[in-house]
């Protein structure tokens, strides 16, 4: 039995988070897989993922991939590391390259239109291949590797209304993942919502799939053991609407849809979560953004998936944004930056185990094994003069 966990990978300014459920189900939220070298400052995300993911017929697979939006720092490495195309054609060469099969992908057509880069294009192309299978009612449409969920609404130039059975819209809760019903895990969808399509400022504001991951100890538990919010690059405007809509439908009370134990600081701890940029022209955080942070539960933590945060004008990550989060947390140690955990020179993922009393930061379990050791060629290849 796997341990239910959330793992935030150190990927610089970018997002790459793996949720693992106790039945082994895996959900990856965005990816930013950079080329690794001997430089330990770049964590080998791919190797770690391969170690965590299950295999089917010796092929690594992910149950669900959620792309919050198509900025490159959220989908880098997709084309190279994830298998695309008919799953029946997964070849020895794919296996050799350890390409990860995505059983079910989550796709937002309205967000997809806003971005373009090689990896995003590949994601969109793969999504459209799957949508086509479903539109054509192909007998293979429900095979792992062909499954898809549409999140949000369709842009004006697309119409997937015949696939509404695959759609999840804001305000709803998803508990089926990769064709499996989960009793202790669900996702509350907050965005993207229709207003993004019609807003006069839609091109100016950035949006994403925004959701709350909800964990329970038992299916019958009245409270959640952990609530984790993922906001992609959503800005204060999106959060304003999220707050308003959630309250309007009383989902903040009925579903605790805004509560959080873990809050992934949107847009890599950008000031855009709090207000317009530059911050010096808009120094006061929007109340709505602060109100969202007030839904923090006891011991809640903010995770900044970003570069190291310096006291300068960079954005993202933004120093004042960090200060705003810390003010809300009331405790500096509850603000965690992926770039410096445990050390800046060799960052490692920040992993939380989900317990009935909330998330707990995992502790390194590794101990040395061999009591004996031997030197490398260093001394052996050095001339030693002895008297």
């Amino acid at each position, binding site marked *: 039995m796997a341990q239910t966990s959330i793992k935030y990978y150190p990927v610089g300014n970018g997002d790459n988070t793996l949720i693992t459920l106790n039945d082994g189900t895996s959900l990856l939220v965005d990816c930013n897989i950079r080329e690794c070298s001997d430089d330990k400052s770049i964590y080998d995300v791919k190797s770690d993922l391969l170690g965590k993911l299950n295999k089917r017929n010796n092929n690594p697979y992910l149950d669900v991939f959620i792309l919050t939006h198509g900025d490159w720092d959220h989908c880098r490495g997709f084309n190279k590391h994830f298998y695309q195309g008919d799953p029946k054609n997964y070849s020895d060469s794919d296996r050799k390259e350890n390409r990860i099969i995505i059983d079910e992908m989550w796709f937002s057509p309205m967000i997809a239109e806003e971005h373009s880069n090689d990896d995003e294009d590949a994601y969109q192309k793969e999504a459209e291949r799957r949508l086509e299978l479903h539109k054509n009612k192909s007998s293979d449409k429900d095979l792992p590797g062909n499954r898809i969920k549409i999140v949000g609404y369709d842009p004006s130039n697309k119409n997937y209304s015949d696939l509404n059975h695959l759609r999840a819209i804001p305000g709803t809760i998803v508990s089926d993942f990769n064709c499996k019903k989960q009793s202790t895990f669900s996702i509350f969808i907050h965005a993207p919502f229709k207003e993004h399509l019609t807003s006069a400022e839609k091109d100016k504001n950035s949006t994403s799939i925004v959701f709350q991951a909800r964990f329970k100890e038992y299916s019958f538990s009245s409270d959640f053991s952990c609530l984790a919010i993922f906001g992609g690059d959503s800005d204060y405007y999106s959060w304003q609407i999220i707050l308003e809509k959630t309250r309007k439908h009383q989902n903040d009370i009925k579903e605790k849809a805004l509560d959080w134990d873990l809050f992934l600081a949107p847009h890599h701890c950008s000031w855009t979560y709090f207000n317009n940029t530059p911050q010096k022209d808009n120094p006061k955080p929007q109340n709505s953004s602060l109100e969202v942070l007030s839904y923090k539960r006891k011991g809640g933590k903010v995770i900044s998936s970003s570069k190291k945060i310096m006291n300068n004008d960079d954005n993202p990550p933004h120093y004042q944004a960090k200060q705003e989060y810390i003010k809300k947390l009331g405790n500096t140690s509850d603000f965690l930056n992926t770039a410096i955990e445990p050390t800046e020179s060799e960052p490692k993922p920040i992993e939380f185990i989900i317990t009935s009393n909330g998330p707990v930061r995992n502790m390194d379990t590794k101990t040395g*094994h061999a009591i004996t050791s031997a030197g490398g060629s260093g001394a052996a290849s050095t001339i030693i003069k002895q008297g």
Partner: protein
Amino acid sequence: MQYSHRLELYTDEIPQVISNSIQEIENFTNQKALVLKYDSENIAIPLNISINLPSRGAVGGIDIGNVEPMLLKISLRKYPFQIPELLSDREDFPRTRLPHLYVSKESEPARLCLVRNNPNEWYANHRITDLLVVGQQWLFKAASGLLKDDGDEFDPTRIIYSGFHVYQYDLLHGLVQNNERFIPSITGAVLLSTYYQDENRPKKDELLKTVSNVPFILKNKAIEVVKTIQQKNEVKSSLPVFSLLVWSDSDFPETEYNTELPKNYRELKLYMHNHGIQIENILNVFYENGFDLCTYIPITHAIKRPKKIVGFNGSYEFITYTIYVKEFTKGKYNDEAEVKIRSHIEPFSFDLAQKLTGESRNLATIYVGAGSLGSKMILHDARSGKFKIGVVDNDELLEHNMARHALFPNKVGWNKSVALVNEISSLFTTHTSQYKAFETKVEEIPVQEFAEYNWLVDSTASTLVLNYITKSALPKKLSIARCELVNEGKLGLLYIEGSERNPRIDDLVNLTYFYANSYPKLKEWRLSDAKREIINLDVGLGCSSTTTVMSDELVSFHSSVFSKLLHNETEKTQTKRDGLIYMSVINNSDILDIRSEHIIVKPFDIFNCKAGSNWEIRLISGLADKLITFCRENGNRETGGILLGLSNYKTKTIHIFDIVTETQDSAGTCSGFTRGTKGLPEYVNNIRHSTGEVIGYIGEWHTHPMNLEKLSERDLVTIEELKNINMKVPIPTCAIIVTNSKILPFIFD
């Protein structure tokens, strides 16, 4: 309050090895270590260990903080061969609410159980800082509710025990779960157990095995049986005894761990009382019914836990106490009587065997031959949890068998099959095995007995058995294999028949001889075999055994290989199977050289004699087509040659593995064929030599292109000439007529 506050500074000399480790601790913690005197044998170092806590505090409200004061207890004399103990320095440590703690008194610090199996072995490969990291993990897991090993389960009490109690958890759990009381007035059941004691056995290793429940109605019968066995058993090394299983009437689960377990009857009585059990009442019933037939009474206490016990299928934890009751009589129980605690061991079962070996040997096998090779293969199967095994052997185990046989001297004089079945049955004391000994020759076993099995494995190396298996009408579903060790154990051969007994076992055995022409290892064996001198071992007055010289390791090596291969073969589900010849080769040269080769053998083509002699010819696959092709390709001209193979008078079978076509000096016409001899004797002798004088000339073949399906007049004359020659060998006279579509053998004794 912390225990360390009561300890004094240790001021005596510290062994260097401990000083080094203390230095390592200081480097790890960045703090100067304080060394305290724990007792005369040990020092203690206080440490603060920091851990992460869940956001809303430790799971379940367990009182664990993010900094826990601990004590590292190090033996002055035994370190580093004895692992340091990591103890909580807190007097109020929540010891009753946490698993993975050794049982300890309130007055002593709680001791963390950090690693599985032998902690000293673990520490031999780790450093003292590793121990601290593991301790930190323990506390982290305790606070996060992760100390349970596998999901939502309850970890049983870590007891310090003296001896073992072997019982099937499900048996005891079922009795308690179903409230199967011996009599309605007590919450207890009586069990039939065996107590194993031996002068040579350390007290700590004394063993108790529980076999079954004793219901009230079977009480008298059970007592009678136990008394009879106790009287007969002079050695007293294994005594049948009655034991008790007791539980509480209350359904309320106990969540807390015991901090201390009873050491004498007085403490046991109080302990049981605290758990809602009136042990004196139960003991009274035990005595009233006459179960007191031993100086020990084992009492197993069932404790209901809130969750399923880790690794078992129920929520009851069992702790067994053994009371030394020499001075007990009904109603008079000596408070000072010693009580010992036994650790549970699940009996070795088929399920456990399969789980541990990772194999499911579900098909039933009958072994013919329980010699050194067979006995080891049978043990492999039994240890892997094969539930049904038959063993056929009419031979007795003798002293000289101790060199290579799987059995031990206690079975000398026993029939090998009976002894082996006795031993493998004893592996599964609490399960009914379907192991059966056939103390007879294989040919005397009714054929229907074989229908009970899926596989027959002949490990006799006996030609007699080979012939019997070859020709007897064994059940069609029975798969057949044979194995033997040859060339002084340097070569192991395993043959597996094909589907529908084709290729048959004798095809494979004989074909192996023939392949000595192609496989150097087979040739080496055949050449050596031709020169082999059989050694007669004197094993006793008027009794001798013929055997070859071979080390036990060689037999064990091949038996393991064969056992594994047979298991792999039995797992295959295809309905059609070719035959297999498998060679396991071991060369005891400078550096031991191990290899294997195998040959897949297609079904033979089988033809019966057309002359009414009951002989059968069996042609290696492809040879019949080859002969017919020769006939067709030579048009109206007859052609021919000789057959290579061997014959078996006992089975009336001729195996043909190759042919020689017409020699240069042969001549064929449309009405006749004269087979020449040029180069032929040399060729045949070479094959005979290579195959250890086994394979050679076995007959003639020639074509009848006009499709005459009988021997011609000229053929009949030739047959008579050949008979005179062949009877001197002796071999039957075999002539195959090949037409454009048929193979027509004519064989004469």
